């Protein structure tokens, strides 16, 4: 019985982690659907967004390290702090600017290239952004705090304690993340279904040329999609950054989003969410049940192996469009 209750707790925590994965995976799906680009840089975007947010909040001087090294000065910060809400807004602006630059400097020149070339270009982009983030804001681990509640949720602990005689440990941040992710998804769905731009986005996703021929501007749509992806990255960066500090490993969660996508299918927003939940729950339960027998730390590879095995049976993922090939 105890084991079962522990497992239930692990299950719940897995669900929460899964939501976080789904949040990153969402950014991937958006860009992939609209531009056919598999954006490896999504995780680094999240890292960059989080770094920028912290930097703006604490009033750091961008490129302080570089300026000091070149000019021999010792400037560190402007000496002011920016309120969280304003900082988030400013960071969102930076992400939109970034989206614009990416479209202008990279994607525009790669129109019509093979998908794999575009994929590799985003790897290059990821390296660049990683370096840029470090040069701009410094590479030390930062604490991110925008006022989201953290720590164990007391109410859930007391309620479950009454029911089962054992208080579940659930982070309040995770609950908030789940709620925000759900809101974000609802907003995105509403946007893509009910607004003019959303329809144009779906049209582009369906067929680039047909969309062009009815007068939709591809470039605008791409900038928009990358901005949205940047915004999703910002949200993901805030969540993960609050949870475990803003540091390089943040960009590695992007890799975790890959099996999520494979499981859910690259082109499906519900797929990203369901896939995220399955991976989150699966890896936590596997670690809990099987992990101790084979040495632990299975979370590093479980998601990939699960996706690998799954793909052998259903190559397009759970919700992906059926792959039809013609010679």
């Amino acid at each position: 019985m105890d084991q079962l209750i522990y497992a239930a707790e692990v299950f719940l925590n897995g669900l929460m982690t899964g939501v976080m994965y789904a949040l990153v995976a969402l950014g991937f799906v958006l860009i992939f659907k609209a531009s056919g680009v598999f954006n490896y840089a999504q995780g680094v975007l999240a890292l960059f967004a989080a770094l920028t947010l912290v930097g703006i909040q604490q009033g750091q001087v961008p490129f302080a390290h570089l300026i000091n090294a070149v000019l021999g000065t010792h400037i560190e910060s402007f000496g002011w702090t920016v309120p969280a809400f304003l900082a988030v807004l400013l960071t969102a602006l930076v992400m939109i600017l970034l989206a614009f630059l990416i479209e202008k400097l990279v994607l525009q020149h790669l129109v019509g290239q093979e998908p794999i070339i575009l994929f590799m270009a985003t790897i290059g982009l990821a390296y660049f952004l990683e370096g840029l983030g470090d040069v701009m804001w410094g590479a030390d681990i930062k604490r991110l705090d925008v006022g989201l509640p953290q720590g164990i949720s007391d109410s859930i602990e007391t309620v479950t304690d009454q029911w089962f005689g054992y208080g579940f440990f659930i982070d309040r941040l995770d609950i908030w993340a789940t709620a925000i992710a759900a809101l974000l998804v609802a907003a995105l769905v509403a946007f893509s279904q009910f607004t003019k731009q959303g329809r144009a986005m779906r049209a582009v996703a369906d067929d680039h040329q047909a969309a062009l021929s009815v007068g939709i501007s591809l470039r605008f749509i791409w900038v928009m999609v990358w901005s949205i992806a940047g915004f999703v990255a910002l949200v993901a960066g805030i969540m993960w950054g609050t949870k475990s500090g803003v540091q390089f490993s943040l960009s590695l969660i992007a890799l975790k989003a890959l099996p999520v996508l494979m499981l859910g299918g690259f082109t499906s927003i519900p797929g990203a969410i369901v896939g995220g939940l399955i991976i989150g729950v699966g890896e936590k339960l596997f670690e809990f049940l099987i992990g101790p027998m084979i040495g632990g730390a299975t979370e590093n590879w479980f998601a990939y192996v699960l996706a690998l095995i799954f793909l052998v049976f259903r190559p397009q993922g759970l919700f992906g469009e059926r792959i039809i090939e013609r010679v």
Partner: protein
Amino acid sequence: MLYREAGDFKTSYREDGQTFPIRLDRWGYYAILVVAFGIIPFVINDYWASAVLVPFLIYAIAALGLNILTGYGGQVSLGTGGFMAVGAYAVYKLMTAFPDVSIVIHILLAGGITAFVGMLFGLPSLRIKGFYLAVATLAAQFFLVWLFNKVPWFYNYSASGQINAPERTVLGWAVTGPATSASAKYMICLCFAFVLAWVARNLTRGTLGRKWMAIRDMDIAAEIIGVNPLTAKLSAFAISSFFVGIAGALLFSVYLGAAEVGEAFGINKSFLVLFMIIIGGLGSIFGSFAGAAFMVLLPVMLKNLLVGTMGWPTDLAAHIELMIVGTLIVFFLIVEPHGLARLWALTKEKLRLWPFPH
């Protein structure tokens, strides 16, 4: 005026099919071999061996391997680091279990073991392709690193979890261990790189290579004209992993001497080798070498420039280096998606027409 095929008559099919059809190219190739085998071993010092030449040769082998799989076979792999780890741990186990057998045989066997593992992880390629496969190979990367970290048998139950290369000799010269001279390290890597490049060149222009390229260009069409995708894909995985395994074995035993799996063979290694073949050129033997040289030299030069000349702090230089590498990758993809090898080929074309281009 020298760079012409005019006057260079071929009298047999053999001559017609040679790798370097232009005489000057041939001479250049022989000259490089003479310098590489005859001069460099006598003048090499520790800095050049450990900073430039040895890593260049080892990564060139790895890049050759990945190029066979990705450039010729069209199967994108992000598991190179994991497969290099297989080579390293295989050679370590063999070296410690059979101390009397020559290390050359051990390295070759390690390549064979890696080939087997590579085939195993290549099996999904029969069902999935493109990005899906790339992500599937990540499973190999993470699983293998985890395995070598968690199962003590692989590192002989050593307390630190590291593997250390014991001292071994080839023809009386120490090639592993702390007493190894720079030229011995260089020579063993050079011999492997030379032989493997020769093998790769001849494999890729033979039946097997054509099968790989047919699969790469369009697998369904290839299947219809009679290429068996099972054997073609799995052989690409096996041979590629063989090369990568040897590179991993050399990297550990000759170059590093001691390795910890997560650090030496992490996901970054996979990307590094991938960048080498993108920048060098997909589907090109020369490109593998050019890309390896570029990616090995770039950090060394940037470090010398930024830290040595301009006196910037090391961490800042490292970040700038990341930015430059990223920019260069994007730049190369935009300007020349076929890499340095294509640039070189274009140069040669221009040279043949020079000075009368019309």
